């Protein structure tokens, strides 16, 4: 046990100020009034949905939770169910086999809700292409989207900035 505590002390606090984004975020819909967006600030529960990604975007979303970025310090945390989520963070081109699951997850999320599409695939199906029998479309083709974060994959900083931008008033 002593080694464990020594390691914690030696490691120290590695969390950094949020850096510059590599890729841009664009806000789309004006679905939520600024008053509601404001209410999300400080406590935003996110359900992550992989709708067909290559797993690259997931790795970077997981990285946004590591000690360097510490997403939770912004009052943002990931939850295991859409039932108590405020935001869906969706990655990947939406495959034909995930279309129904994505729609159901959206419907299971109580309103008011936000949807952020993260990664080039989520925005335009990326390398897999919209002109593909196995793909139903981009995220916005399937459910309403409030913000998109570019990048393949977006970096953890991009993801955090994107999420925060989506709830800024």
């Amino acid at each position: 046990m002593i080694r464990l505590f020594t390691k914690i002390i030696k490691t120290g606090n590695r969390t950094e100020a949020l850096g510059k984004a590599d890729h841009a975020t664009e806000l789309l819909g004006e679905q939520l009034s600024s008053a509601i967006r404001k209410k999300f600030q400080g406590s935003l529960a996110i359900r992550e949905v992989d709708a067909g990604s290559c797993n690259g975007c997931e790795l970077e979303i997981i990285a946004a939770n590591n000690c360097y970025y510490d997403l939770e310090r912004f009052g943002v945390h990931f939850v295991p169910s859409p039932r108590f989520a405020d935001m869906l963070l969706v990655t990947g081109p939406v495959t034909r086999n995930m279309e129904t699951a994505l729609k159901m997850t959206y419907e299971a999320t109580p309103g008011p809700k936000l949807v952020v599409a993260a990664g080039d695939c989520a925005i335009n199906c990326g390398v897999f292409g919209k002109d593909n029998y196995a793909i139903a479309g981009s995220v916005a083709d399937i459910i309403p989207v409030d913000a998109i974060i570019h990048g393949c994959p977006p970096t953890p900083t991009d993801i955090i900035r994107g999420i925060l931008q989506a709830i800024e008033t």
Partner: protein
Amino acid sequence: MIHEANTWFAECLSDHGIFTRYLEDHHPAAMSCLEVRRLDWANVAEEARRKNMRFVSLWAAEAGSHDKKALYAYMAFAHLEHRHVLLRTDLNEKDPSLPDISGHYISSVRMERSLQDMFGIRVEGLPDTRQWLKHEHWPEDVHPMRTTFPVDTRMPPVEDALSAGDLPETGYAFIKAEGDGIYEYPVGPVHAGIIEPGHFRFHAVGEKILNMEERFGYVHKGIEKRFEGLTAVEGARLASRISGDSAVAHAWAFAQTCEYAAYLDVPERAVILRGILCERERIANHIGDIGGVCNDGGFAFMNVQMQRLREEMARMHKDLFGHRLLMDTIIPGGVTCDLNADEQQRLAQQTSAIAREVEELRTIYADHPGIQERVIGSGSVSIEDAISIGLLGYAGRASGVYADERIEEAYPPYDRLDVRAPRGELGDVATRVWVRFEEVAESSRLVLALLKDLPEGSLQTEFIAPEAGTSGFDAIEGWRGEIAAWVRFGENGIIDRYAVRDPSEINWLGLELAVREVPVPDFPLNNKSFNCSYSGNDL
């Protein structure tokens, strides 16, 4: 060496009266492709089993423009000494059918089901004929991998196929279990964590799992079809994204297959850089997964530390190679990145620093009774089972199956390295974690050795595609295990078929076996100890 034909298996078969024809337009000769008669198909598999060969993959390809109107089935096996051999047989293109080989190799079942879905090939005697990649809402007569099916075909909307209120899972005949106190528990496709989608159907009694059945295909995104019509150089970008955590391994498998087909030599410097990239990817993923297993076992400290190290690696990758996950670093003919003297030193320093820290953390992990209690003895896969399904990578090495292409195939740069793969036997979560710790240490040693050995020279040779009809095959030891890849070129350097088998297609079966008798709450840490890819499986 790769120019020398491998005749061993052909001789074994001819001893049993099975005649084979060596295909000249397949490279490399050392992993030869033999044509057999369709009626001998299952006998060939039986003979392979008798010779203790490992089942590698099963796929199909319609002939390209060079070879009118034909549909072929392929399978590949590997022998510890005599290495890989491919078999091909001609199917009736109008009404294709193929004998089942799952009686000899159980891992072939899902691949055979995929052949039914994607090519409309009837597999005679297949014990499980449920659709695999094509979920219930796909029209039955649609076979996306046939050449008559353009990649951009718009499929009818899913709603039309499902009756109102139906879940996509409703129409799938999961295995049933009945009896007192048995309950059924569906999980997914959308999981609780930040992970890929798939469905697990549990049968449990009390808190013990009786059986867990996997149902995948959710992230099927037409990857193999997408490759058709690309040039080798264009294909590299897609190959990097078959499974985002294996960007290097898949890009390498793809590039090397193309290079073998074209008999193209890659510059020394590029070969060594590929090795460095691949070993760094291995370290990063093992570190992340060790953290993940500990997290699922309630030991958050280890996860925080491991994710910190992984982040430090990602940052250096961005700095030195241009991408945090090392995507787009390997292309057919070479690599797209380089290291100057100063960068080599930084990479060496970080690699040894991380290896040191991981060792330090390992002693803390080993001394922590809380996590040890969760991992020791949980989710064992026996050696017999592991051999039977041909378990790959660290999952195999934890269960007495030591297939490692870096050692057996010894493709460059591993031909000059003495790779020491750990050898576990107990096959539980603790052993899979132990193998990963060992591999972090070994891969760090390899990175340092390769860095010392980096010769001057160019980074790329121009890729010149082979003649139409030429195919290539290779097997790369990615961080998860062997990736088997087969490519065939059509006219003008265009790929007319790329078939790739991620190790997950085999190792997912290992997870099903591992979690029998395991308490339901220990499923996540078992799952993480395998960490199979969904995207690589569903393609």
